[in-house]
Structure formats: C-alpha cells, structure tokens
C-alpha cells in the first residue's frame, strides 16, 4: 500500500497487486505439502481482512466529508435522477405484483383460521416492516451498485480520477460522497413508494376475489400501522442506501487496470451490497426488538 495520497487515506490504489500475488488462482502440479495449504488459507484470510478494513475506512471517511464544504449539490441532484428516478419503473411493477401475490397466497390460509379479516393488516405489516425495505434495497442494489461500480471503475482505469485529482479536486468528495449521499436520501423515498404500491397490489387481489371496498381495506391498513412500524422500516433504508452507494463506489475506486476490472467491479459490487443489506437487516431487526421490545 504505497501509493495513496492524502495522509488519512485508505489503501485505495494498489490492493490489486496484493491480490494478484496471492497464489489463489494457481493449481499446484502435485499435492502440496501441508503448510502451503496453511499459507494459502492465511493469505486468503489476510486479503479478506484487508478488504474489510479497506471498506470500513472508505466508509468512515464519508462521515468526515459529508458535513464539510465544498458541497457538490449539483452532482447529488444529478445522481438522484440517474440512480433514483430511473429505478421507478421496475419498482412499480415489482411492488404491485408483490402485494398481489402476498394477498392471493395468504387469503386461503387466513380464511382457514377464520382470520380473513386480518388480511389488510397482515399485508401492511409485512410490507412496511420487512419486505418493502429489503426488496427495494435489493432491487436498487442490483441496478445501482453495479452502475456505480462500473462508472467509477471506468473512470479509474482511464485515469479520470487522477485527472480530477491533479486539477485540485478531491475525487472522493466529488465522486463518492455525492453518490453515497444520493443513495442514502433516495432509498427511503423509493421504499415508501414501493410500500404503497405493494399495499395497493394487495387491494387489487382483494377486489378481484371478493370485490371488497377500497375504503375499508385502506382504513384497516392505516389502523394497523403504528409509528413504530413505519419509522424503523423506512429508516433502515437510509443505511441500505449508504451501503449500496458505498460498496459500488469502493469496488469502482479499487478497480485494477483494464476493462476486465470494470466488469468485475460491477459484479462484485452487487454481490457484496446484497449480502451486506441482508446482514445489516438482521442486525437492525435484533436492535429494534431490543430497543422497542418484542411486541412491536
């Protein structure tokens, strides 16, 4: 790690080399002695530890930058449009269908227990607390993390990041902070949008099967939802958005030379972001239960 610049810097630039030097891809001609397996395992572990450390430092740096000028609002606005607004068509379709399916599948079971009347409440709670945030985050991760990874990655390999830097512009602030911020702001809005559509999808199913009244359905929905369902549900998506933007940008920023690296950055960004979202969701659920009590 000898080539990053600002003193505070995360090892940004030459991870690649360390990675290349691990004997991971080589197949030894004969069965290697015992300790080389050990070495292989060690070097694997070390390189993943390095990556975890790298991402953590990269992510913490965001908080040092985001509250201090210069602010790049015009860039953030641009990303709102590119990252957020363009996800809307997909989210619309998924949202409605998700609610529809949920209602269709749950109705017979609920009826069997004589609890059919709870259907609106059940849909609302499932969607708002859990499915809405996670599905939105995963969909946006698929679209946006890879997009950011590829975009930043190609800027890296074509030296555009270097070009920003020599013209005295901090590329982290200009490229990373803006994207992460845009994601963290836009994701709660997209989640709220998907939640609404999914609940509406649930109504469509109800209307098809029993032509129940919209007013009744939505009254039940609203009554069943409390502050403590909505706020943690939508609130955690701020963290999901942060992860989506951050991991995309990190993978892009650490792209090795060449176009092949750009593709890899895009793919690994989606995988990593999705895993982290699921993991973080689990942690947040535990925390919510701990703080607000199991009843909520």
């Amino acid at each position, binding site marked *: 790690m000898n*080539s990053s*610049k*600002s003193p505070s810097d995360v090892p940004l630039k030459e991870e690649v080399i360390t990675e290349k030097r691990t004997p991971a891809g080589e197949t030894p001609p004969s069965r290697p002695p015992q300790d080389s397996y050990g070495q292989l395992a060690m070097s694997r572990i070390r390189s993943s530890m390095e990556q975890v450390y790298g991402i953590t430092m990269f992510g913490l740096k965001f908080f040092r930058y985001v509250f201090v000028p210069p602010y790049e609002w015009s860039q953030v606005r641009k990303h709102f449009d590119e990252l957020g607004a363009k996800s809307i068509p997909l989210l619309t379709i998924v949202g409605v269908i998700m609610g529809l399916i949920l209602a269709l599948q749950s109705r017979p079971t609920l009826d069997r227990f004589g609890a059919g009347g709870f259907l609106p409440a059940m849909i609302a709670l499932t969607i708002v607390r859990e499915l809405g945030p996670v599905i939105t985050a995963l969909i946006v991760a698929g679209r946006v993390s890879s997009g950011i990874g590829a975009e930043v990655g190609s800027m890296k390999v074509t030296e*555009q990041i270097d070009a920003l830097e*020599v013209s005295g512009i*901090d590329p982290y602030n200009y490229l990373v902070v803006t994207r992460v911020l845009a994601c963290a702001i836009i994701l709660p809005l997209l989640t709220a949008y998907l939640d609404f559509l999914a609940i509406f999808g649930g109504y469509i199913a109800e209307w098809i099967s029993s032509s129940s009244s919209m007013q009744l359905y939505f009254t039940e929905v609203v009554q069943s939802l409390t502050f403590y369902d909505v706020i943690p549900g939508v609130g955690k998506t701020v963290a999901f958005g942060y992860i989506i933007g951050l991991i995309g940008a990190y993978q892009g920023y650490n792209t090795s030379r060449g176009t092949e690296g750009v593709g890899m950055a895009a793919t690994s960004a989606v995988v990593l972001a999705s895993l982290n979202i699921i993991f973080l969701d689990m942690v947040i659920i535990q925390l919510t239960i701990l703080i607000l009590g199991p009843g909520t």
Partner: protein
Amino acid sequence: MSETEIQPLIEVQNVYKSFGDLDVLKGVSMQVHSGSSDVILGRSGIGKSVLLKSIVGLLIPDSGNIEVMGHQVIGMKASALNKLRKSIGYVFQYAALYDSLTVRENLAFPLQRHSGVDEEEVNARVIEQLRLVGLESAIDKMPSELSGGMKKRIGLARAIITKPSIVFYDEPTAGLDPITAREISELILNLEEQFGITSITVTHDLECARTIANRIYILDAGVFLISGTFNELKESMEPTTRKFFKVVA
C-alpha cells in the same frame, strides 16, 4: 548547492518506486529550473509515466524526495496539495477526458472549480484554448465521438486552460500525424516562451524533443542514464543513447 545558484522549481532526489516485485524507479534524480523545458526519453514500460505521476503526488514513491515550487510533495496534506496543484497542468498519456462531459464542459471544469472566473470569461477561454489546438469545431462533441489524436489535443487544452506555471506532458504528440505533431510541439514551445511555463515532457518523438527541450534525460533501468542538450546527446557514444538517436542521425 552554492548559494548563488537559483532554487530549482522541481527537484527530484533519489526516488525509488516499486509495484510488488517490480522495481520501476531505482534512484531517480533531476532538477528543473524555472522556465526550462525538459524532456524525458525512455523505452516503453520503463517508468516515465510513473515518474511524472510521482512528481505531482498521484503516486507516492517508496523513498526519496520530491519538491515542487519549494513544497515537499511526499506526505503533503491533501488541502495543501490541492492548492499546489492549481498551478500545475498535466496532460495524460491517454487524455483522460471526463467521458460524461462534453468537450466544452471538460475544458470549463477546471476553470469553474477555481473560483473567481465568471461564465463569460470561462466561455471565452474555452474557445481560445480550442483554437490553440485547432479543434473549435469539436466544442459540443462528447469525448467518445473524438479520435485518439483529437482527445489528446483536448487533453492538452484542458491542462493549460488554467494558465498553470508548470505543465507535465505525457507523450503529447503520440498518435498524431506529423503535421499536427509539429504544431503541438510548437504550441508547447510557444507556451514556454510566451508565458514562461516550466515543463517536463515525456515523449518518443525526437522531432518534438528537438523543438522543445532545453535538456533531455534518458531513463533506463530505473535511473537516468544520461542527460544533456539535444545536440550533446546526439553526439554521445553511449550505446543506448545512440540507439535512441540513430533515427534522426
């Protein structure tokens, strides 16, 4: 150094840089004085770009010392480095144009960032620079619509639009036809003579080196093999140097 001697504008002392097992620079030293235009020759992959990038702080050497305008570049604080970089222009080997911006925006970008320049002036400067490199017609094109040589010239225009006092040119004439290449060499010479720009140029183009160089360095196996004026090197008996100059002999 004796006290009567002027402080060099760029001073590189004993710089080492390696990537993993690959030792690229192994003790490079050079001094560039204000207003001078120095040229680095060397075979492909020998580390010329790495040296230029080290001088502007894009790469951090493993050891050695680099001073630009009296500032220690290695270990410099990011904010101070950014300030120093405002008086530096850098022409990237592969242009490195921002591919989401048009040519006009690419050129305007560094200017708008250095506050105090109003919109009208930005526009005027953009057009002026494009005229210098002969590409006014490309003003509203995207970088993806340009040829390699055109990108190169836009990259050059972008590097000098802020009127820097030091410019680094990484192969400014590579991939250009002989006529354009000569025009670019003359442009570089002009900038030096008119505005007193100090520059370091990496090139394989001996015509360009002949036109602009006050002093030429040959980088080989991680160190400067030899340095001198064009004519001195042309007469040199040193074998590698002779190989470089055979073409023009």
